[in-house]
């Protein structure tokens, strides 16, 4: 066995340039594969961060239509409901449209009780609750644009027209790596008051209600109970778990997600071609050596195993290096894309897939050359010298 391993290691080092290039190619492929899977994972970040005890109620027609404010008390009255908070997607522009980040007007007191994963410095939180023009920003958002407590945050409204100005009162951190800290929140009441002055007929309208329930197991039942309240009214509602709500968004851009997944597998095929080429060339050059081994009495299986071993050794080297590189590159990618991908985490599943891909390539590349090596006729192979 030791001799077998020695042979394999020495053989891979015979052609340093070729082995080095192949390992480099595998590194890049495994790295790309891992990055792409991570990007796909980021798509589902919202759904993954959803809590089982939160529901989202929206207008049944679509998210574009609001609900009357007085629904809030009715929802609150449904048995099983602990808290209700109004939330409107603000959609304003900070300096220029490219500098996008999510902005929500929320019933602050209720909302942040429902989202314990947003961690505050207590003093700052109190300051925010006291200031009706106050705003809260997430850590990643603050870092991207350099927001500090006390800064003024001006926004140009699109859905809610006009110029708006807020004061940053608190910066929240996420409890876990997958918590979204690229968001900005301000007071729903402030939004509503301002709209009453500017465009009165658009006041007292809520985008969604976030509902916290006492028993997650009863979410389906409670959702239906909420919707039953508003059936046959002017604005019928649709209530679903937060996870289902987030997945709904993902489903809309499904085509892109599918596309990225497909492309991530294309890269595996590219590197398979490169690896198979390397092994084929290597095996062809060594045909006389394999013939000699067989002449000496080694079984065909041994010879095939030599080829397979070499292929796996190269694949493992490239694969492990690629996996190691994935983490720093993903982190760098995350800082470059700022708020576009709030959560960019390399998951264990991704690493497992990378490893699997590398090994699969190592095996597949060795199949034909290994078979050829095992089957070489001794006489033919020996004649191939010179």
């Amino acid at each position: 066995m030791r001799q077998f391993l020695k042979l394999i290691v020495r053989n891979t080092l015979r052609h340093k340039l070729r082995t080095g290039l192949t390992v480099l190619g595998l590194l890049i492929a495994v790295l790309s594969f891992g990055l792409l899977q991570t990007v796909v994972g980021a798509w589902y970040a919202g759904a993954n961060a959803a809590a089982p005890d939160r529901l989202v109620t929206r207008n049944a027609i679509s998210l574009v239509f609001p609900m009357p404010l007085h629904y809030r008390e009715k929802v609150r009255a449904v048995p099983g409901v602990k808290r209700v908070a109004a939330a409107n997607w603000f959609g304003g522009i900070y300096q220029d449209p490219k500098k996008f980040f999510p902005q929500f007007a929320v019933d602050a007191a209720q909302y942040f009780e429902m989202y314990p994963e947003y961690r505050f410095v207590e003093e700052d939180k109190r300051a925010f609750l006291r200031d009706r023009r106050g705003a809260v920003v997430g850590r990643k958002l603050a870092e991207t644009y350099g927001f500090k407590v006390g800064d003024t945050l001006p926004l140009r409204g699109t859905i809610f027209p006009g110029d708006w100005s807020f004061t940053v009162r608190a910066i929240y951190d996420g409890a876990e790596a997958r918590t979204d800290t690229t968001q900005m929140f301000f007071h729903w009441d402030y939004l509503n008051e301002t709209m009453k002055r500017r465009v009165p007929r658009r006041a007292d309208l809520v985008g969604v209600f976030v509902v916290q329930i006492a028993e997650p197991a009863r979410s389906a039942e409670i959702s239906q109970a909420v919707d039953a309240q508003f059936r046959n009214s002017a604005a019928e509602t649709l209530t679903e778990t937060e996870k289902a709500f987030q997945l709904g968004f993902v489903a809309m851009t499904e085509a892109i997600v599918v596309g990225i997944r497909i492309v991530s597998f294309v890269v595996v095929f590219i590197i398979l071609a490169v690896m198979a080429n390397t092994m084929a060339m290597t095996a062809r050059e060594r045909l006389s050596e394999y013939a000699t081994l067989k002449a000496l009495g080694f079984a065909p299986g041994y010879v095939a195993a030599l080829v397979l071993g070499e292929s796996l050794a190269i694949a493992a080297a490239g694969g492990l290096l690629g996996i190691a590189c994935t983490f720093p590159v993903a982190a760098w990618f995350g800082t470059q894309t700022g708020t576009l991908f709030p959560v960019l985490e390399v998951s264990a599943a991704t690493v497992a897939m990378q490893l699997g891909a590398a090994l699969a390539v190592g095996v597949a590349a060795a199949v034909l050359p290994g078979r050829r090596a095992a089957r070489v006729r001794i006489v033919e192979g020996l004649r191939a010298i010179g």
Partner: protein
Amino acid sequence: MKSIPLAYSVRNLWTRKLTTALTAGGMALVVFVFAAVLMLDAGLRQAMVSTGQPDNVIVTRRSAGSEVQSGVERPQAALVESQPEVVAASKETVVLIAQPKRDSGTVSNVTVRGLAPQGIALRPQVRLAAGRMFRPASTEVVVGRSITQRFAGTGVGERLRFGARDWLVVGVFDAGGSAFDSEIWGDVDQMMQSFRRQAYSSVIARLADPGAFDALKRRLESDPRLTVDVKRERQFYEEQSAALSGFISILGLTLSVIFSIGAMIGAMITMYAAVAGRTGEIGALRALGFRRRAILTAFLAEALALAALGWALGLGAASLMQLVHISTMNWQSFGELAFSFALTPKIVLQSLAFAAVMGFAGGVLPALRAARLSIVDALRAA
């Protein structure tokens, strides 16, 4: 400089068929991804550009990113209509409704547009493909070709329910691959009532003279009674696709570049092996009187021939993608948008250049090694 016959380079590819196939195959995959991404972007833009007419303008609320986010009050709309440059105008309301898809049942946002008959006239690219147009002041609707294909309950004769009403689908229209193919159209007043809207979303207007645009824009945007943006329809729709297009381009091109490194490495390995296997020939050629540069060129030509083969295969596969249709949510308008892959002559040339760069980068170092060999060493190693 006398060069080695091209047949020498090209025929050597034929000798090692498996290696040539694998190396060219790797490059073909990269070219495929590169071309497919460019084609997707081109297809998206084509869908958007064909949506806009050159002599139409669209008026929305200032800074509104899309019609869905925009609101134009009735008096403002009337003002726009009455401008001297405007020869025809349509006041429209645009909303999104959530509908389940036919195949997966997942729900997606569909754009619903309320318009008047003059609005239909402002879109000459739209033709009726089945059934008939909706009657004004009725709760009838017509659906775009892409909608009826993809979404449940949108066939002629079926009823859609939204806004607390039933809407009867009476026809299917074909908008020539533009964004309108992904919309549902109905009567504007009925829709405004049903959605309890007081303000329109936008005003579409045709100008008697397209050159009058600048004057109109200046006047409307500086009028204190109005808070509007006036854009040519073409430009408006181009901006609609900017975010999605940017994402596709950047992600796709980044991936292509990274993948190309993998394919280049494959080409490099192949060419190094080719040089190593033919040192005797290289020595003989130099002895015969061919210069170092001729050797360099011959091996570079071989690498480029490989790349050309990869390009042909990759582009061929990519061109098949024209049969595929994509439907996804457009980030700007939040509505579902259908488009497909479009192959343009520019993409053909761009992918050729890309392949050439791959071939050159992969082949240059081995070719240099071949050229640098001393004649004596090369002959001895044979």
